[in-house]
């Protein structure tokens, strides 16, 4: 794989500009095939292992594709391929930015390969190197338009937060090495049962949680996603965030005790993440930022699945545990599908209108009907309504919650589970509100503002990946039993000791899910037939075109339409403890009798970011200012530092302080 990548990168440097997307596609496809074959083998059969021996490195680096890695590798591959196809169409509009595009495709292939490496390295150091490679290459992808100051700023924000994650992970692995003498993930299982080893889990969890976007570590998402080109946002939101989930799953499969405690903590954290994410998403005007917050919500839902799974293990209820974990896995798959679809749709809209503010849009369904329909499918799927795929995974998670409610004895856990059900129901309602608003304001009604040029339907290259994704989504929606049975295998492989092999006892659940697929099919049939009856009945009747009823007012203005802001205003008032509205207005000149033009703007601020993350970062930088004298810009002093360091090392070895 490394060989293909190497030649690919070389090729990308040599090959002429116009062929680069094709070559990138080729490299991604070859990597995909190379990694998918062992993954599929791992998913249907046994774990595939291998070892790399690198000179000057003690011991072999174990490479292993077990079914958990395989699940994520297949998700990565699908999303990356759709991303590269979409991207080759999307970046055509940026033909003037030659250098940017050249670098872009090189980093895209590197990004894809590094994500695969993250999934296959069992050894901690190899894992960390590929993790870092992934963060850096995705950073380069995010700052595609590096000439733009705002993009660069978002990129730096992203870089800093990703390195916080790397630092935590490195610390965790070093600590692990000191306790057990091994860098591998599987060493987590050999740790002695004491408090120190809990801290290793907490460090690793925090590192992965930054990547996954749990609150309060979420603040990189709403900045990085709008800055990146849309196919990158799609892949990042669909996959990179999921690798945080992969990491969390990877560490909790070695957890040997305290399941209940970890489960409850993860459950509460995820529930607040989901609520916080969707409440912010409902109120944002920038549609890519809205999608980023919605990713946070979905990570919360996945986390709820993980929490239920852990609580299930803690209570020795293997059905609940399986439902929780497999719900989380399926939601990971589903979210990577519909979120990339939505980001691709959003990208097409952005490319045609050059604005990300939904209040400037409207009526696009007439100009871009295909994009609108695809976006609608994505929006309904993410809202979790049947007959789409989002419902399947949410159903499994609900089922796990209800199962737990019936089997768990303790009152505190019962209350926790009921609160989670409540929270999940509210999250479902809020995402309905968010996506009716987004879809309605962007695509329906009349255009709210004059655009620079008439928007038109995006090209076939950009629509093709969206068709592929929709096909995959309906696959999950109509054959959930099939996908669930593989998720079941992943779960039983990952937790061999704590969840006994229960393939047999899970067959009612698989039947149950096949029922869901069937009911979805019946529902679609019913929808079509009812519409068909309507069509038969009224096709001969006259339908007079007329303008929208203005309640007697005969001079309607387009500005009077309901906007996104007004749609969610009462919601915002109700949830002002979570998301605060900030109004800013120009000072009103008093001496004038008749007011002239006057600016007034509102926006919603992310309370956690404003009052927790930014002050914390400010305090840190304030302290670091005292060390600024070190970076004085004189080359002589830098040489001096190097010399000083060498002497320090020499003294250290001389006095046997460093081995």
């Amino acid at each position: 794989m490394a060989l293909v990548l190497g030649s690919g990168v070389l090729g990308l440097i040599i090959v002429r500009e116009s062929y680069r997307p094709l070559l990138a596609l080729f490299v991604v496809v070859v990597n995909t095939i190379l990694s998918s074959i062992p993954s599929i083998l791992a998913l249907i059969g046994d774990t595939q292992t291998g070892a790399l021996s690198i000179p000057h490195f003690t011991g072999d680096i174990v490479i292993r594709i077990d079914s958990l890695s395989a699940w994520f590798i297949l998700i990565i591959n699908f999303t990356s391929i759709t991303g590269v196809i979409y991207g080759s169409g999307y970046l055509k509009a940026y033909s003037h930015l030659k250098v940017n595009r050249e670098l872009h495709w090189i980093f895209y292939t590197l990004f894809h390969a590094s994500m695969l490496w993250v999934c296959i390295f069992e050894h901690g150091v190899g894992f960390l190197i590929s993790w870092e490679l992934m963060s850096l290459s995705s950073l380069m992808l995010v700052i595609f338009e590096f000439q733009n100051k705002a993009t660069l700023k978002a990129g730096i924000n992203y870089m800093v937060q990703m390195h916080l994650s790397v630092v935590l992970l490195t610390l965790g692995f070093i600590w692990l090495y000191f306790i057990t003498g091994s860098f591998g993930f599987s060493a987590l299982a050999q740790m002695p049962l004491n408090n120190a080893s809990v801290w290793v889990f907490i460090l690793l969890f925090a590192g992965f949680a930054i990547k996954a976007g749990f609150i309060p570590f979420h603040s990189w998402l709403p900045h990085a996603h709008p800055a990146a080109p849309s196919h990158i946002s799609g892949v990042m939101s669909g996959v990179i965030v999921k690798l945080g989930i992969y990491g969390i799953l990877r560490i909790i499969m070695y957890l040997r005790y305290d399941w209940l405690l970890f489960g409850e903590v993860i459950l509460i954290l995820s529930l607040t993440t989901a609520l916080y994410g969707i409440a912010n998403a409902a109120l944002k005007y920038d549609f890519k930022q809205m999608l980023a917050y919605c990713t946070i919500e979905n990570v919360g839902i996945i986390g709820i699945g993980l929490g239920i799974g852990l609580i299930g293990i803690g209570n020795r209820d293997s059905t609940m545990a399986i439902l929780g974990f497999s719900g989380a896995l399926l939601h990971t798959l589903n979210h990577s599908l519909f979120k990339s679809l939505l980001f691709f749709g959003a990208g097409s809209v952005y490319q045609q209108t050059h604005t990300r503010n939904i209040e400037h849009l409207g009526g696009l369904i007439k100009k871009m009907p295909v994009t609108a329909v695809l976006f609608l499918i994505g929006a309904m799927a993410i809202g979790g309504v049947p007959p789409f795929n989002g419902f399947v995974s949410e159903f499994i998670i609900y089922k796990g919650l209800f199962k737990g409610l019936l089997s768990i004895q303790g009152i505190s856990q019962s209350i926790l589970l009921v609160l989670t059900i409540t929270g999940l129901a509210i999250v479902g309602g809020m995402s309905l509100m968010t996506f009716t608003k987004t879809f309605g304001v962007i695509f329906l009604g009349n255009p709210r503002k004059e655009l620079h040029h008439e928007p038109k339907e995006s090209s076939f290259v950009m629509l093709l990946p969206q068709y592929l994704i929709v096909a995959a989504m309906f696959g999950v929606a109509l054959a959930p039993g099939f996908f669930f049975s593989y998720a079941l295998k992943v779960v039983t492989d990952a937790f061999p000791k704590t969840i006994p092999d229960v393939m047999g006892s899970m067959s009612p659940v698989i039947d149950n899910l096949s029922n869901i697929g069937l009911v979805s099919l019946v529902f679609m049939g019913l929808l079509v037939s009812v519409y068909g009856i309507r069509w038969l009945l009224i096709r001969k009747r006259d339908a007079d075109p007329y303008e929208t009823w203005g309640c007697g007012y005969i001079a309607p203005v387009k500005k009077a339409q309901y906007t996104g802001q007004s749609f969610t205003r009462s919601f915002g008032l109700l949830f002002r403890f979570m998301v605060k509205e900030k109004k800013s207005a120009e000072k009103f000149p008093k001496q004038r009798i008749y007011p002239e033009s006057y600016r007034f703007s509102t926006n919603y601020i992310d309370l956690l970011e404003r009052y927790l993350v930014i002050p914390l970062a400010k305090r840190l930088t304030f302290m670091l200012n005292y060390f600024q004298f070190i970076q004085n810009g004189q080359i002589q002093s830098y040489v001096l530092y190097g010399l000083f360091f060498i002497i320090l090392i020499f003294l250290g070895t001389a006095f046997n302080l460093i081995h």
Partner: protein
Amino acid sequence: MVSLLLILIMSLFFSGIIIRTKSIMSGRKGPGIFQPMLDIFRLWKKGSVVSTTTSFIFQIAPTAYFASVIMAVLMIPHGSNPGFISFEGDFIMFAYILAFGKFLMIISALDTGSSFEGMGASREALFSMLVEPAFFILLGSFALFTGQNSFHDIFSSLHYGSQISYLLGGLASFVLVLIAMIENSRMPLDDPKTHLELTMIHEVMILDNSGFDLGVILYTTNLKFAMYGALISNFFIGMLPFEISIPMFFSIQIVFAVAVGIIESFMARFRMGHNPQFVFILTSVSLLIFFGVLLVLGKFV
């Protein structure tokens, strides 16, 4: 199967009973109970006026809304007789299928580009979001109470042992009545009686629909009422044979309709800003039911 037929029959004169009750309460004679349905038939035969702003969403939404409610009705059992579709966890799908119809109705209101309809759509989205938890806690409590996980199993194994559990049944009907009122935007929340533009939620959302589509939407509202009525009646029917359960079904539905009529005659509409508080009452009553269930099961130690 039985419940589908019963609900369809009931939906023919449910709103007729409400209107009749209201007219008797205000001292008028009032129309016959089939009059609303006859009006709907008349609408089904009419042509329509379609706004030029709208797209195909506006065309498909009313029928999709109707189909989603029919799908939900198919899941409702009648006592010991399971619904057309019945599987473990069907009430989750019930709630989400209703959400499908709501989603399309909301965006079809936004499709007209009218400021009035946007207002209705916004409120519909808000109130249906607030009502969702109450339904889930209610069903969760009864799942816990009976140890079952589907509509049919819950209702057929529901038997009232102690006095507290009678209280639970009463509270559950209270919650369901209010859910039905909110879902259909009836009196304490919104006043469907006023002139169309002055209603605030549901009626204002469908200002632009006319002819066949309007008839479909109005009929769906009746169907939804009868559906919630059927759910309420299930709390009391249990394992009774048809000779008793079918008259009981109708009498419970009629009591429900008369109660709606009486509420609408004697209550004024709340201020829109106070509605969320009112909706939250439902969630807290559902939580009360949940704690009641914990008490009955002896989980409070």
